[in-house]
C-alpha cells in the first residue's frame, strides 16, 4: 500500500467517496428497516437518500480523520497521547456529524421522528474508530513492507560487495602476480613464500565468512586489509609504504563488512601501481565528535576535476545509504600536496561483546 501522505489529494477523496458509497448501498435496507420500526415508513428511494447522506458525510470527513490518525497514532510509546486526542475527538466529531446529518435529512425527507438515536450514536462512534483502526493497520503494513525492502536491499548490496572482494582476489593481475611471487620466493625464502600463501588463503576465507554479516568490528576489517597489504608489500617491495593507525576505541566500532577493501585497492591502484617510484598509503581510524572517521590517503597523482567512480565506490555509497541513511558519509578529496584521501564517516555502534 502506498503512503497516504504521498498520494495526491484527489485520489484520497475519490477512494473515500467510493468506499462510503458502497457502505451507503449496503446500509440502505438497514435504514429502511430502522425507519419502518420507528413508525415512519420510507420508500426504498427515501432510504437510499438517507443512507447516502449518512455515509457521504463520512466521505467528507475521512481525509481529515486519516491525516489526524497518521499524525497521532497508537504506537507503544504514544498510546496515551493518542487516547487523550481521539477519545474527545471521536465524541465531538460524532456529535457534530449527527447534528449536521439530522439537519440535512430533515431537509431531504421532511421533519419527523427518526429511528432510535442511541443506535445511531453507537454506529457513529464505531465508524470513527474504524477509520482510526484502518489507518493504523495501513501504516503498520507499510512499515513492515519498508523494513522488508530495506533488508532485501542490504542483502543485495552485501552480496555485491562480496563479489567485488572476490573479483579483487581473483583478478588475474593480482592472483597470478601473487602466485608468481610465491614461485619466486620459494627459491630464495621459503618462510616468506609460506606466509604469502597463507595470507592469500586468509583473504578468501575472510571473504567467505562475511557471506551474511552486514557489520563487523573495524578490528576484523583491519585484519582482512592486513592480509591484503602483506601480499602487496611483498610484491611491490620498497615501492609500497603503508602506515595503519587506529585507536582502540575505533577498532571496536562496527563498520560495514568489506568496506575498506575497495578503498585500499583504489589507493594502491592510483597511488602505487600506476606510477613509477615509491608510493605511500596511510590508513587512519579514530572517533571524532561522536563519529567514527576512517581516512585512506595516497600520495599518487592529483585527482581530476571530475572523478569517474568505479563499481566498488558506487556499491560502497549505496550500502552506507541503506545501512545508515544520512548518518554516514563518504567523500573522495584531493590532498594539497597531490594524491587523494577517501574519508568515511560512520555513526558509532558496538556489538554486544565489545565494551
Amino acid at each position, binding site marked *: 500500500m502506498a503512503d497516504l501522505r504521498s498520494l495526491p489529494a484527489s485520489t484520497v477523496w475519490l477512494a473515500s467517496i467510493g468506499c462510503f458509497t458502497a457502505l451507503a448501498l449496503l446500509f440502505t435496507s438497514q435504514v429502511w428497516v430502522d425507519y419502518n420500526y420507528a413508525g415512519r415508513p420510507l420508500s426504498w428511494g427515501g432510504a437510499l437518500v438517507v443512507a447516502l447522506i449518512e455515509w457521504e458525510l463520512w466521505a467528507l470527513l475521512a481525509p481529515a480523520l486519516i491525516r489526524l490518525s497518521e499524525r497521532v497514532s497508537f504506537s507503544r510509546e504514544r498510546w496515551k497521547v493518542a487516547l487523550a486526542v481521539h477519545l474527545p475527538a471521536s465524541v465531538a466529531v460524532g456529535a457534530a456529524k449527527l447534528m449536521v446529518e439530522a439537519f440535512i435529512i430533515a431537509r431531504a425527507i421532511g421533519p419527523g421522528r427518526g429511528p432510535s438515536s442511541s443506535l445511531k450514536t453507537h454506529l457513529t462512534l464505531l465508524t470513527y474508530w474504524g477509520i482510526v483502526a484502518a489507518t493504523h493497520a495501513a501504516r503498520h503494513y507499510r512499515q513492515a513492507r519498508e523494513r522488508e525492502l530495506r533488508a532485501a536491499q542490504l542483502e543485495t548490496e552485501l552480496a555485491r560487495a562480496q563479489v567485488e572482494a572476490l573479483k579483487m582476489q581473483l583478478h588475474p593481475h593480482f*592472483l*597470478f*602476480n601473487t602466485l*608468481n611471487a610465491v*614461485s619466486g620466493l620459494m627459491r630464495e625464502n621459503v618462510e616468506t613464500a609460506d606466509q604469502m600463501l597463507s595470507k592469500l588463503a586468509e583473504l578468501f576465507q575472510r571473504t567467505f565468512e562475511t557471506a551474511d554479516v552486514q557489520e563487523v568490528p573495524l578490528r576484523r576489517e583491519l585484519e582482512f586489509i592486513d592480509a591484503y597489504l602483506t601480499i602487496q608489500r611483498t610484491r611491490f617491495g620498497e615501492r609500497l609504504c603503508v602506515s595503519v593507525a587506529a585507536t582502540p576505541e575505533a577498532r571496536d566500532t562496527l563498520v560495514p563488512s568489506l568496506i575498506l577493501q575497495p578503498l585500499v585497492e583504489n589507493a594502491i591502484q592510483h597511488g*602505487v601501481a600506476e606510477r613509477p617510484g615509491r608510493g605511500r598509503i596511510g590508513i587512519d581510524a579514530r572517533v571524532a565528535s561522536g563519529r567514527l572517521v576512517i581516512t585512506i590517503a595516497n600520495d599518487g*597523482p592529483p585527482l*581530476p*576535476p571530475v572523478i*569517474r567512480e568505479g563499481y566498488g565506490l558506487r556499491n560502497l555509497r549505496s550500502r552506507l545509504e541503506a545501512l545508515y541513511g544520512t548518518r554516514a558519509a563518504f567523500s573522495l578529496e584531493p590532498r594539497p600536496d597531490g594524491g587523494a584521501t577517501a574519508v568515511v564517516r560512520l555513526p558509532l555502534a558496538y556489538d554486544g561483546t565489545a565494551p
Partner: protein
Amino acid sequence: MTLRALVVDDEPVARRKLRMLLEGEPSVQVVGECEDGGAAVDAIREQRPDVVFLDIQMPGLDGFDVVEALEPDEQPAIVFVTAYDRYAVRAFEIHAVDYLLKPFERARLRKTIERLVSRTNGRDAGRRVQAAVETVRRHQPLRRVLVKAAGRIYAVRVEDVEAIEAAGHYLEVRTSSAAHLIRESIGTLAQRLDASRFVRIHRSTIVNVDRIRDLQPAFHGEFVVTLHSGRRLRCSRTYAAGLTEALGR
C-alpha cells in the same frame, strides 16, 4: 653463442625470479634489470641486449609502450611476460610472438630460450611483435599518450589531458599545467581515445569532456568551451551536436 638478456618487471620478487632462473642457463647472460618501461627503453638503447623479458603491466610506460617507443632497428627479441590477459595472449598466438604466463616454471622458460638460441622464431620476429601490439591496442582505448622529447620518452595519462590541439605537423597534448608535442594526426589519435571521454569539437581540437566547466553559445551555432583550468576553446558548428550529446551522457 650467449644471449644477453634484460629483465623488465615492476615487482622486485618477479625480477629476482627471472634473473635466478636465467642465470641457471649457460646460454644466457643477464645484463640488467629495469623496474619500469621508461628505464627499459633507455637500457635497451644503451645495452643493446639480444632479448628483453618484458612485463606488460607496469607504471609509466607499459610493455607495449616500450615496443612502440623503440625504432624498428633498435628492437631486440621480445619475450612478453604477463599475468593472464585474454586479448594479449590471443594476439601473441596469432602473430606467433614469444610470451610467458605468470607463474611460469623453469621448463617453460627453457623452451623459450631454446627457440631464441636456435632462432627458430624467424627473421621477421620484430615485425610480428609490432603487429601483435597493434592488435591489442585496437581492442582497448588509449590510456597513456607517449611523448618523445629530446631523447627522453614519457607517458601522459589520458585522464590528465584536458585538450589536444593541432599545431602544424604536430599535436599539442595539454594537461592543466603543461603542453606536450607529439607527432601524430588528430584523426588517428581521436580514433584511439575513449569516445565517452574525448570528443572532437573542431577540425583541429579534441577536448576531455570531464574538464569542461561550461559552454556558451556564440555566433553561427558555435560554442565557446571553458575548461576548469580557465582555458577557452572554440567548438565549431559541425561538431556542436556531438559535444552536447557527449555532455548529456
